[in-house]
């Protein structure tokens, strides 16, 4: 490469010898004086250009100009122009500017200059990701981008997070965005887990339908485009980034100790029946004062060390660039005997075959391995049992055996025994290969084909022996489930780009096809004669059952897109995508979009407004879809298998002999179609004072039609439900992203970024039905969410709690049908019939935030850097299952365990915690358990120190940085449970409605991290 440039310069020099041509020498560095490799240096108004070498040095001909102007550019940095004196030597320091409008951004099937983008998009770059010890890509979106609400539904390791771009847009289907990894539209559990955060170059978030319509039937929840790093030209670089985190439970509930528990049981007995002798006599109570008992919250949790290692080797020549990386994560969970481990390997190779042909090969693998990290978040989970268990009981008896059950507290199984003896182990192998071929057919015309193949094999092994909850009821079992999955995508597109005077045009035509297929086999063995072989010998069970499954999806698509700009000021983007899907009977659906942009700052009249560096107005409209219709949903099925070994499929013509029965399944409609989301978006992008302040505002209105729902099926046609497109819903909102560099004096720099998002959701129609009550979300609650036309999704539904009946209200309480007494729960008797019934239920809260925000601050002084992120939501509530169960008297929870119970109502002390009178209507479905879940979290605080260059150069070290950080260090909230961020979203048949319901979910850990970034 160097040789080529020299040769070129030499040649040029020969040609220009008579025009006083001279060589300009110099060096390009970043703000801290570190060399920038591969920066472009050009002479303005000529076609002379060069790139910097590995030391950041360049030499360029002045092109015979007397006052040449150098234009220096580098991706991620603001361009710099300066007048050069021919023959002189310069050092050009480029300012890092992630928000620069000239940046090239990935937009799907190509790239675009940021300033030409007409849709609503946001970017998260590698340097932002590197600030936190992240393990999953969704975490990088939290707090960094406006319009994106990220909540980790559970603190269990290795679990995905819930990401909502501009609110939920489906009741039945997924609300997660579409993830596209290096062009592969396959952001599934495995491919997302296979991404090491250190391998990510950038995340591009497409928010409005004018930007996502190019992904057609999969674009309605927004799109996250993930680009992985490539090797850079130059000598081989080795980067080693290990970090270690200590994790702990962020909070414990205030539960009773053995003595208090004894008092509580006595109090409960007295409240239930004043004449009954209390279970604990005074002497026994006295003994309890010295009883050690068990703190079950401590017993089921641990404070694990999380380890993450990343090694990458990258480099390249002018025609081959490479990056190889290895990542290993070892993440034990907060719960004992739970973990998630993964190893990933990646090879990204870019080959420039010749001037016309580029090839790219990205191959990566994932080897995951986990145990007990998949509790759905239910009141029967061991974590939830811990706060319901008898604190007097030891974990084990004197002989070391688990005490499986207790006569007080929870009636369920000892949670430590359940976690220790119950195994849910998952392992697998994922291999993904992406090959991209780029061929320049003619000037401006390029053919690209992007082919990806993913293969995933997974194995789940379960063991619930006699010493588990399953074993106690005689349903002990071992099981193995294997899945063999593949996903294959082939995208082919032609891109034509040209400029005719003031007109600039890019046209793209795409043909794409994608297939994915899964085969599942599950073997379950019940009542094993021996558990000595664990889950490895399924043959010894008293009953065996084998089930299997299969599905295959095919999607075929055509897409066309036009980007047109006039004078680089007036921008137009239009696209149409047509998707043909195997899921639908009417296979094809079409998704159009159009957007316009106006770069006002380029207008003549703005030339003198120097404080505005750039100003762009955008407006767009587009339609995208949500593939909520499952495979085979339009095909009538025949029920061929019973669900249990002795299931009731079959008839007995003589009362004993089974005749297999294959009744027809539910009716289906052949007219099912994708949910359609039409978004109108208007936005403004601006930067002021030479880019020191940036501002981006978007307002949108998103209407979702053809909402898919399990509609009640009339009894005359077999009853039950059937999938149907009913109703519509809207999301409207406004979002802000404000960035700035308030301070940049010498070595001191402060940069800050604030994102703020408001979204309002409303159900517009439900096919003539006014409201639908959704139940069975976790076993703690039932019928707890209601969908009402004119109201937002996921309203909580129940009694409005008015405190307890007080002594002076005794007469009124007694006038109720069930004759309440002071100390009983008092609810709002909505219909005035003096009886609490479901007709008194009303909307008592909602789990969706009214707004959410993220605030990132970065202070650097020389080699020191301090950054922190504050993130929060406001206006959302949590309907807690944890608190009512800790108060006892529900399900398995017989006795109260929460300290507050000792403060329950008494004639002398009339609190609003009801007494456990037999007459008390103790309803979980009550606003008593609905809490404000607004929170502000110090999500991350990090201090890093970069060793000085001079020192490192001597040790042949390119870069060495040490950092300490903490995550979830401070949480400010009124919520009394473990973590206001977690909920059961993603639970049940209609996950969007379960947001804010919480029934014993593992909280997000607080972690302290020590890390190192070394480059050689």
């Amino acid at each position, binding site marked *: 490469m160097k040789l080529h440039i020299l040769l070129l310069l030499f040649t040029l020099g020969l040609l220009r010898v008579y025009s006083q041509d001279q060589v300009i020498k110099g060096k390009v560095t970043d703000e801290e004086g570190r060399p920038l490799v591969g920066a472009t240096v050009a002479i303005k108004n000529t076609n002379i250009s060069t790139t910097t070498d590995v030391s950041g040095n360049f030499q360029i001909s002045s092109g015979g100009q007397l006052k040449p102007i150098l234009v220096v550019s580098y991706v991620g940095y603001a361009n710099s122009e300066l007048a050069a004196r021919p023959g002189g030597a310069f050092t050009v320091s480029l300012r890092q500017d992630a928000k620069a409008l000239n940046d090239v951004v990935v937009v799907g099937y190509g790239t675009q200059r940021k300033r030409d983008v007409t849709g609503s998009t946001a970017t998260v770059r590698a340097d932002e990701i590197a600030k936190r010890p992240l393990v999953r890509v969704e975490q990088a979106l939290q707090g960094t981008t406006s319009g994106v609400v990220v909540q980790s539904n559970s603190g269990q390791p290795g679990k995905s997070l819930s990401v909502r771009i501009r609110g939920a847009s489906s009741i039945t289907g997924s609300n997660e965005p579409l993830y596209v990894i290096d062009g592969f539209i396959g952001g599934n559990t495995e491919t997302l887990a296979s991404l090491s955060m250190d391998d990510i170059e950038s995340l591009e978030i497409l928010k409005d339908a004018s930007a996502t319509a190019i992904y057609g039937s999969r674009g309605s929840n927004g799109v996250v485009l993930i680009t992985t790093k490539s090797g850079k030209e130059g000598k081989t670089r080795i980067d080693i980034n290990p970090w270690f985190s200590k994790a702990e439970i962020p909070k414990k509930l205030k539960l009773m100790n053995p003595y208090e528990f004894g008092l509580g049981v006595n109090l409960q007995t007295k409240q239930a029946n004043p004449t009954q002798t209390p279970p604990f006599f005074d002497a026994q109570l006295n003994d309890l004062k010295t009883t050690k008992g068990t703190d079950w919250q401590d017993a089921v949790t641990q404070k694990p060390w999380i380890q993450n290692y990343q090694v990458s080797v990258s480099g390249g020549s002018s025609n081959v660039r490479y990056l190889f990386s290895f990542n290993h994560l070892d993440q034990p969970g907060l719960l004992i005997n739970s973990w998630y481990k993964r190893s990933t390997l990646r090879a990204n190779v870019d080959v420039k075959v010749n001037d016309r042909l580029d090839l790219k090969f990205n191959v990566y693998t994932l080897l995951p391995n986990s145990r007990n990290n998949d509790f759905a978040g239910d009141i029967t989970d061991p974590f939830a049992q811990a706060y319901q268990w008898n604190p007097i009981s030891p974990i084990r008896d004197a002989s070391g055996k688990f005490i499986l059950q207790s006569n007080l507290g929870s009636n369920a199984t000892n949670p430590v025994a359940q976690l220790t003896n119950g195994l849910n182990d998952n392992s697998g192998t994922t291999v993904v290969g992406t090959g991209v071929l780029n061929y320049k057919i003619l000037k401006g015309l390029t053919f690209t084909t992007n082919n990806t193949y993913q293969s995933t094999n997974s194995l789940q092994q379960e063991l619930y022996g006699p010493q588990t909850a399953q074993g106690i009821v005689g349903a002990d079992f071992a099981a193995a489930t294997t899945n063999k999955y593949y996903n294959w995508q*082939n995208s082919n597109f032609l891109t034509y780009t040209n400029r005719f005077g003031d007109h600039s045009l890019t046209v793209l035509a795409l043909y794409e096809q994608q297939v994915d297929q899964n085969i599942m086999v599950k073997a379950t063995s019940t009542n094993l004669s021996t558990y000595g072989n664990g889950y490895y010998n399924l043959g010894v069970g008293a009953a065996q059952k084998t089930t299997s499954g299969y599905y295959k999806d095919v999607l*075929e698509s055509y897409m066309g897109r036009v980007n047109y700009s006039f004078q680089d000021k007036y921008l137009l983007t239009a696209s149409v995508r047509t998707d043909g899907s195997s899921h639908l009977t009417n296979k094809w659906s079409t998704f159009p979009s159009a957007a316009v942009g106006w770069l006002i700052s380029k207008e003549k009249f703005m030339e003198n407004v120097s404080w505005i560096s750039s100003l762009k107005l955008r407006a767009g409209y587009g339609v995208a879809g949500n593939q909520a219709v499952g495979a085979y949903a339009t095909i009538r099925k025949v029920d061929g298998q019973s669900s249990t070994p002795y299931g009731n499929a079959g008839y007995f013509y*003589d*009362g004993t002999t089974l005749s297999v029965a294959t009744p*027809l399944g539910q009716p289906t409609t052949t007219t099912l179609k994708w949910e359609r989301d039409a978004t109108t978006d208007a936005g403004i992008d601006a930067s002021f004072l030479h880019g020191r302040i940036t501002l981006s505002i978007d307002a949108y209105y998103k209407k979702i039609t053809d909402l898919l729902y399990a509609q009640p099926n*009339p009894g005359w046609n*077999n009853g039950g439900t059937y999938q149907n497109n009913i109703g519509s819903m809207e999301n409207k909102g406004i979002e802000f992203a404000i960035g700035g560099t308030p301070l940049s004096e010498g070595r001191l720099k402060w940069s800050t970024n604030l994102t703020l998002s408001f979204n309002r959701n409303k159900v517009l129609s439900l096919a003539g039905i006014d409201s639908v009550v959704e139940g069975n979300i976790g076993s703690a609650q039932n019928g707890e969410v209601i969908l009402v036309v004119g109201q937002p999704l996921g309203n909580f539904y129940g009694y409005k709690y008015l405190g307890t009946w007080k002594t002076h209200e005794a007469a009124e309480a007694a006038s109720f049908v069930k004759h309440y007494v002071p100390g009983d729960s008092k609810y709002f008797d909505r219909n005035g019939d003096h009886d609490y019934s479901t007709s008194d239920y009303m909307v008592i809260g909602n789990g969706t935030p009214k707004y959410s925000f993220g605030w990132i601050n970065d202070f650097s002084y020389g080699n020191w850097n301090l950054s922190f992120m504050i993130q929060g939501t406001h206006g959302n509530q949590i309907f807690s299952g944890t608190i009512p169960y800790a108060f006892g008297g529900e399900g398995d929870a017989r006795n109260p365990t929460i300290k507050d119970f000792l403060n329950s109502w008494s004639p002398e002390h009339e609190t609003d915690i009801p007494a456990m009178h037999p007459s008390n209507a103790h309803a979980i479905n009550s606003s008593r358990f609905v809490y404000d879940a607004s929170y502000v979290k110090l999500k991350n605080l990090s201090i890093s120190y970069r060793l000085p260059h001079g020192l490192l150069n001597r040790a042949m070290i390119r870069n060495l940085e040490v950092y300490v950080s903490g995550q979830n260090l401070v949480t400010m909230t009124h919520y009394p449970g473990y973590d206001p961020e977690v909920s059961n979203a993603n639970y049940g048949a209609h996950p969007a409605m379960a947001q804010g319901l919480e029934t014993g979910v593992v909280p997000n850990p607080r972690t302290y991290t020590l890390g190192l970034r070394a480059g050689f």
Partner: protein
Amino acid sequence: MSTKYLTSLALMGSLIFSGCQKLTENPKATITALTYYNTAADLQAALSGVYEQYAYDGTWGFTNRMTTYFGADDLTTDPGLNKGPLREFDMLSGTSQNIGMDIYNTWKGIYQANNLLAVYQKADAPDSIKNIVAGQCYFLRAIGFYYLVRTYGPLPLVTKPVNPNSHPKRDSVAKIYDTIVADLQKAKSLLPNQWPPTEIGRATAWAARSLLADVYLTMAGWPLNQTSNYALAAAEADYVIKNGPFNLSTPYDKVFTTNNTPETVFALQFSVPKSLPQRSYGNSCVPLEEVAVNGNSGWDDYYPEINFYKKAPACFRTDATFYTTLKLRNNDGVTYTLVNWDDPRTRARHPYYKKFRAGLNGDGVSETATSIAYMNPSTNKALDIIRYPQVLLDYAEASTMATGNPSPDAYAAINQVRHRAGLGDLVSGLGGIAFRDSVVFERAYEFAGEFGMRWFDIVRLQLLPQVTADRANEPNQIPTSITSNPTILQQKYLAPIPFRDMNLEPGWTQNPGY
């Protein structure tokens, strides 16, 4: 490698890939309606899927199949407890919101039969198999519609699989009966007369004929009042009596403790160990205060009205039918105190049903005269839907009403039933109407408590004014606003269409009075 070569290779590659993917779906692990029903075995399995719909708890497997028939005098229920759905109809005050109308789920059987009848011809199976599969489907569909139309009146006449988004209107009762008759005519020509013992629960041609006789008899009464059907009913019943294999050799009490007796024309079969229990025998009919030694107690779901019991003729059948001495468990948990049904120590002060207690050989209530060892809510007892006495009494009534006077054969038929009951011959020389009333009286006690037999007689003969007038001062009083208003009382012969379907079918009109 030359660029051209590489490029054309890549282009070719992508062309090869494209076009090979079809958008058609092939759910390999799922049986689909499109690809199934190919073999005789497929048809047989699908047919079992029709039968099982009727046998489920939720269709005809539990007492709630009779909820809407509690207006009859052979059924009443506890004034409190969780018997609201039954009580509503007992008080002739049923509502569309009633959650106990399991009879509406009869549609599930029709849904399965409609499907199988639509596809069975395409199977690669001998015609002989296809015919008997179709015959059973026709029979099962007919019996389903027969119960529904008598309970609800006009209904959509759905005879093939339909799209759930279609909204059929309610068809006239006459049209539905035409289909029932047509189905039974086909069934009787397609079905065999006999099945091997392992398939004893299948419908026979005799079952089709017997049902047809009953259908004709009902068509001759309210609401169609097509009296020309009496002769048809008589002819069908006569054929079964003359040529069929049935007899009343089983003692009356054993009919309810034995499966598939010589008088069973059609019965549903159950299997407790295989999760298909019959749940209206056993606990369901046992008083709440009766507690077995094993700790289980009765459910108090149904028992006869007092005057119905009091008017029963003294005979062996009456003794076998009614349970009049309750066994109250003493504090020792083992011994019992015997009290008469009207003893103040009983809860309801009502006689109960005895015939439904034992189940199959005592798998329901296992008891002696002085103690109850155990009781179960689930029994293996086959549920007789058509018993031979029905054919005999259908014949006796229909032949008499067809000609105006009872023939010797008509007398012979009713006397056969009376003799087995422990009664003497019916008074001879009765006029037509008097004879008919004697037959209806006989039916009331022969079939007391059995799946709406009494209620449907009340309906087709419009007996509510008489039955409500005869009612004693039961705890569940029928409001006088109903009994004293003939227009309102007339509306009670039909049950309300369930609210859920009324809500989903805005084009339907609810039955008058609901």
